[in-house]
């Protein structure tokens, strides 16, 4: 309050991302989640360099083995090393989950903000959302895979093509809830006085949305993002299960789960390991999202 403290503090407003980080650090769950997430990501990225067993190598003589030094997580019914498969599968699962979540988030936020902010677009965009909500998901996915698989595989290679297809399919079929939630929030925000104040300053719509609307709808976006990852991973495994996703020998966590399911009585660890990895991933992302949401809200910050 005295003059010399003013001079010290007033030199330059501190970058507010430091405040966000400070608050984030106080959220224990978020920190643990971040560590777990980092371990999973680093493990799946770097793991194959240390455990250089080919996840697709079939050794029919070593099938359905329990844990041993040669195969720490055992082998599956074709004698493929489970550890190698979990590591390789994680990479693609995380990539699909995150990218599909991002795509659906961007789409949902865009549609929601446009529909909520611009009255003229509201009707048409919301009817579009209803349309997508009413579409039966699986038949649509089947159709998309059938139509676009060949051309995509031809231009991006078998794995890249399928990856793009799956991410796109999941992304465009899961943005609707986010859009609805965001629209509702934008409608309420738009009538708040600070938006009016900004209009009286002469802020154009584009900057109004970026400066006032988006930061204030962060919370619901964060929540739907964290839920979206889990949703994307599960949809991907369902697609793989139907034989529409990645090729059968190509491991993803969802596929490992489905493959292990018939053998759950004989060797439950074949289900347990990928399921554990999947749960840890989804849970850690949920906690990170939770912490981030709190940290981004200045009203909670500093408590």
């Amino acid at each position: 309050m005295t003059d010399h403290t003013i001079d010290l503090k007033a030199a330059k407003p501190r970058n507010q991302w430091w405040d966000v980080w400070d608050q984030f650090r106080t959220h224990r769950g978020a920190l643990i989640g971040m560590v777990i997430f980092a371990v999973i990501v680093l493990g799946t990225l770097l793991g194959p360099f240390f455990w250089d067993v080919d996840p697709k190598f079939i050794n029919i003589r070593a099938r359905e083995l329990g844990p041993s030094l040669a195969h720490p997580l055992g082998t599956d019914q074709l004698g493929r090393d489970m550890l190698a498969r979990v590591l390789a599968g994680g990479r693609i699962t995380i990539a699909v989950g995150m990218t599909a979540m991002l795509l659906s988030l961007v789409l949902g936020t865009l549609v929601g903000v446009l529909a909520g902010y611009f009255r003229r677009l509201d009707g048409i965009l919301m009817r579009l959302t209803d349309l997508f909500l009413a579409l039966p998901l699986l038949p649509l996915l089947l159709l998309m895979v059938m139509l676009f698989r060949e051309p995509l595989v031809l231009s991006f290679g078998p794995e890249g093509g399928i990856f793009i297809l799956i991410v796109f399919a999941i992304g465009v079929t899961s943005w609707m809830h986010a859009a609805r939630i965001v629209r509702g929030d934008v409608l309420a925000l738009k009538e708040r006085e600070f938006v009016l104040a900004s209009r009286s300053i002469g802020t154009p719509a584009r900057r109004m949305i970026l400066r006032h609307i988006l930061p204030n709808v962060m919370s619901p976006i964060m929540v739907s993002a964290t839920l979206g990852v889990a949703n994307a991973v599960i949809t991907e495994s369902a697609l793989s299960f139907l034989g529409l996703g990645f090729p059968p020998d190509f491991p993803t966590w969802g596929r490992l789960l489905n493959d292990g399911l018939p053998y759950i009585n004989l060797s439950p660890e074949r289900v347990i390991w990928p399921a554990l990895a999947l749960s840890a991933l989804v849970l850690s992302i949920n906690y990170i999202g939770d912490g981030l949401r709190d940290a981004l809200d200045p009203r909670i910050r500093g408590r």
Partner: protein
Amino acid sequence: MLDAKPAKPLVTVKDLKMYFPIHTGLFRRHTGDVKAVDGLSFTIFEGETLGLVGESGCGKSTVGRALLRLYELTSGSVTIDGDDIATLSSEELRLKRPAMQMVFQDPQASLNPRMTVAAIIGEPLDEHTDWNAEKKLARVYELMDAVGLNRAFANRYPHAFSGGQRQRIGIARALALNPKFIVCDEPIAALDVSIQAQVVNLLEDLQEKMGLTYLFISHDLSMVRHIADRVAVMYLGRIAELSPREPLYADPLHPYAKALLSAVPDPDPETEGKRQRIILQGDVPSPSNPPKGCNFCTRCPEVIPICREVKPELAEVRPGRFVACHLVTPDNQKAAPGSTGGPEATEHNQQGEPKK
């Protein structure tokens, strides 16, 4: 009062109408309008404070917002400093915005909770200047000094402030671009009394220093008496009386102004004991379906038949005093001393007097 001011009009409002459409039924047909503001004309002179009073829902805030074209006007013109706000294109309007700013009623709601004080005050600068960050920051600090905020608060968020401090932030934001005209939309209604005085004094100081012109919207009649040079009394979307402050408070001419001002408590217990309130009967008619004649005819204690047929126009009945009432005519100059208004007004002081 009047002669002390330069008589150059800064804001001229002509026949301002602001209707909000009502859509009903399955097909959302346009079935009527809420006539929030129905034909308002007035002038605000440079450097003066025009008080705008009236009960809840009479359209005060709508007038304030329409003046800055935060709503698209239904009809009429608003000339601020030579430009008709109502017809400017959006880009011209954007460039015109710095000249006119607004202070809002609820200081909590008018500040973005996710922006720091520096960012909030600096927002107008971001929009209308191409200064670098240092220059903007210097200006933000200057403004914070001007409204009496500690510079060390620049990096805090609105939730960390009290109501009075938040209102200061709002005022600093309105001042950022050196406006000429500021609409104060009930700036003190959400504050408690000790803080109200601070904020009002701040507004007065700033007016003196920067030569600002205010439209001061309020339902706090004593506060308006304190700050305003002239006062417009609104009823149901129309101006009932527009007079300089002292004559209005001493001798209101319009029956509604009389009733409204009779509600002002007097700090002197002697006179307060003698104060006779005019209690109006009934409710304000719906603005979607105002009476055919004078808007006040359903509740006026002095109503005469012509009131129910013809809408009175706002006319200058005394020098500088404009009244919209059939009972108050320009030639009718002989207001009885002690009484409040024309000679017809003999029995209006009886409380709860039945009418019609």
